[in-house]
Each structure stands twice: as C-alpha cells, then as structure tokens.
C-alpha cells in the first residue's frame, strides 16, 4: 500500500515555479532517496509534502486522504514529520526542551530515554542550550526531536550537510533503528553514494522535474550522472 502519493505536484515561490508536476509514490516501510544538484527542487518537494509550502488540493495523498493545501502543523499530527535543512533547533531551548517540543503535536513510541539510548551524546548535554552543541550533535538533536512525534513518514532534508564523514556515518547508523519502528523515509541527499547505500529506490530531480527513478542496483553510474547534470 502506498503511504504517500503525489500526483503532478507543482510548487511555487511567488512567481517562480520550483516543481513542474512530480508524480511518485512511496510504499509503507520503504526508504526513498531523492538526489539532484542544487536548485533541483528536492527540498521544495519535502516542504510541499510537509505543508510548509502550499500545494494544490488533490496533489498529495497520505494514507489515501487528500492533504494538498493542509498546513504543516496538521500534517505533523497525521505523522508526517520533517527534519529541516540546517537543523533549525530552537536556540533558547535546552537540548531536552528541544526534544520535548518535538512531541508537542503528537507522541508515540519514542521517549526521551529511547532517544538518549540512540544518541548517548545528547544525554550528557541534555540541560545545555541547543545552540552550544557541535554540528553533528545538533543534527542528532534534530533527528531526536522529529522522532519524538513518532513519525509515520520521516522527511530528512540534507541531514549530512556540512558534517564530517565520520559524523555522517554515526548519523546514518541510527537509520536502521528508526526504520525498525516502522517509519517510512524520504531522504534528500546531495551525496549520491550515501543515498544509493540506504535507499530502496532513488529518484533524481533536475530543474523541478523527475529525470530518473529506479532501484539503486539497477541504476548505472552513467545514467545517474546524466540525470543529475542533464548532459
């Protein structure tokens, strides 16, 4: 069964059109990676699903309900949770308060204790301001904050951006535990190797259109490069 489907999804920033009719569906329990160059519309696609950007009604269906045009806070309550690009922790809240505020709209199987088990580094710094964490720790906090809402669909927007390779490895090591709870993932990545390693399916975007889709094992390097750069 498809958890989420988009049908000819378009998105605009004012007069600028960022997505030109994206149609794809994600099955329950699947991990889908979206790759593409800067400005390809990857983040825009996640924002449209999350409800940060307004979408035409009928363009997005979640668990067979039309959610096009619904606001972000309504979608969180349905279980669509986004880890925003750049982490966007709340600077005046402590690490633990950031995690707790993640469970404001919706709670579930994830508790503070389980987040701390997943990322022990956060437990040591639970009472420190979130802004005092290193980049990697901030990303762990942002992931933990999203998990507190017990996501059915977790949208990860460039969670490796600006982090050292060893930190990226630690963060991606947490994904199996998240998937084991039944979460479906859509991961936006610039790092093709990382994306193909974790994903069941890969979609490549270019200038607001989908140029390639398939299982990682079926996609040749050449095909990905062609879809990525459009040459």
């Amino acid at each position: 069964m498809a958890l989420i489907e988009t049908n000819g999804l378009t998105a605009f920033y004012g007069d600028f059109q960022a997505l030109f009719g994206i149609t794809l569906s994600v099955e329950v329990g699947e991990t889908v990676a979206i790759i593409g160059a800067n400005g390809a519309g990857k983040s825009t696609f996640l924002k449209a699903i999350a409800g940060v950007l307004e979408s035409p009604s009928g363009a997005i269906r979640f668990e067979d309900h039309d959610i096009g045009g619904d606001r972000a806070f309504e979608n969180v309550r349905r279980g669509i949770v986004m880890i925003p690009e750049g982490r966007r922790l709340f600077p005046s809240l402590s690490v633990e308060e950031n995690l707790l505020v993640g469970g404001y709209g919706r709670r579930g199987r994830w508790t503070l204790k389980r987040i701390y088990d997943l990322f022990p580094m956060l437990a040591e710094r639970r009472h420190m301001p979130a802004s005092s964490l290193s980049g990697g720790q901030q990303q762990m906090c942002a992931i933990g904050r999203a998990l507190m809402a017990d996501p059915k669909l977790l949208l990860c927007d460039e969670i490796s951006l600006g982090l050292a390779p060893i930190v990226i490895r630690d963060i991606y090591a947490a994904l199996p535990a998240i998937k084991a709870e039944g979460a479906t993932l859509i991961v936006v990545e610039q790092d093709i190797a990382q994306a193909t390693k974790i994903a069941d399916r890969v979609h490549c975007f270019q200038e607001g259109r989908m140029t390639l889709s398939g299982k990682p094992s079926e996609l040749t390097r050449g095909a990905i490069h062609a879809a990525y750069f459009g040459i």
Partner: protein
Amino acid sequence: MLAWLDTIIQGVLLGGLYALYAAGLSLIFGIMRLVNLAHGDLIVLAAFMILALAAALGIDTFAAFVIAVPLMFVVGYGLQRLLLNRTLGTDILPPLLVTFGLSIVIQNGLLEAFSADSQRLSIGGLSGTSVPLGGGIAVGVMPLINLGAAILIIVGLNLLFYRTPVGRAFRATSDDSETAQLMGIDNGRIYAVAMGLALAVCAVAALFLGSRATFDPSVGPARLIYAFEAVIIGGLGSLWGTLVGGIVVGVAQTVGARINPEWQILAGHVAFLIVLIFRPRGLFPRTIE
C-alpha cells in the same frame, strides 16, 4: 530622611502597578514581536468592563473582577484569532497600524457607551486601609496587594514559560515560528492563547488602576507609555526585568513629585531616557538580536 524612605517605598508600590501594565505588553512582544499600541486602551476597557459588570449584575467590584478576568482572556483570544493574526508577517508596519486603529476604536467606543465622565471602581473600606510600618510611614493595603499581585503574576508566567508544554511552545514559536509548525504547533492558536493571557493580566491591572484613582476613556495611551518604559528599562523579553522597570519608573515618579509636584510624570520619562543612554538594551536584556 524618613520622608525620603517613605517616598521610595510608595514609588516601589506604584511600580507594582506599572509592572502589571507592562507584563502583558512584554509577553506579547516576546512571543510574537507584536507591539500592541492598544494595550493601554485594553486596560481601560477592562476597567469599564468591571464597572459595567458590577452595575449590571448588582455585585461588588471584586466579584465583577473575577468574571472580567476570563472574559478578557476570551476577548484577547478572539481579537488575536480574528484580527491580529492576519497582520503578522515579515513587515512590522501592519500590526502597528491595526493596533493604533484599534486604540482609537476602543477609546471612541468607550466614550459612546460610558461618556467622558471620570469613573472609579469602588472597593469599600479597603481603599483607605493602610498598614503602619513605624516611624510614621504607612503603606496602603491595596498598593501592597497590587505589588504582591504583580510578583505573583510574574512568577506564574515564568513557571508557565519554563515548566509547561505550552510554555515551551511559546518559546519555540518566539525563536522560529516556521520550524515551530513542524513540531505540530499551530502558531495562530499559540498567539491567541498568548494574547488571551496578556488581556487577562490587563484585567488585573484594571482593578488596581480603577481603584487607585479615577479613569475615563482617554487615559489609555498614557498607561501604554508607562508600560513601554517599564518593558524597555527592564530589557525586552525578561519578565523580571519588566517588574524592575516598572519599579524604576514608579520610584522616579514619586521622587520627582516629592521635589516638585509638577515633576512627577516628567521624572519618570527622564529616568527612562537615562537608562536608555547608559543601557540601550535595558537592564536585563534577554532577546538575541
């Protein structure tokens, strides 16, 4: 010497009233960066509400006050949801214009309904009761209750902000309203609850405003100025700073009045300007620029 001590004690007590004027303004600015120019008029509206409820229901001022507090919460919630939420955005001008207009509407509405006559909230024997502190210094019971109420409200708001889920939601929304929505926080509702709280505090301020001296529909803007001065002196975003700011204005006014009765209001403004010169961000700034 004792006379000066008395002056300062009376000033601190007056500061409790100004802190109550300012607490709601500080709360609203802290959460949604909205400068509510109708804040003073909303306090006066609450005072007339207490007056009208007492007259219509034949109850005393305190019973009417108990009804007015939740009623003002509802007024604030509705005002924010139906009107002010539509003005919030990246541009700071629309909320200023709309609350300025609201100030005029409230003043003229009250003028229509209650005329320009001076009114007073009757609190019976309490208005003249005082507690002797020795040495010829006495403090009024109502001003004491007023200062106590201001401290209680600030303690209460701090507990709400730092100990409860809705308080965390307030602070998260204040930090980054777009990301707060990704936590399932409905900003529009959070703002409405905040305005409801602010106006409930206005009702408390109104009780002490109306029982301390007379009021009429035109006195709101001056209350707004005192509230502004208290908030800025205390430092934006700090509720305890707001209490201190209120006390600074209050003490400056009573000291000014002691030197020359004509200087009361002026002295408060001068104290405000002096603080601005030496501490432009206030005494206890909390906001991060």
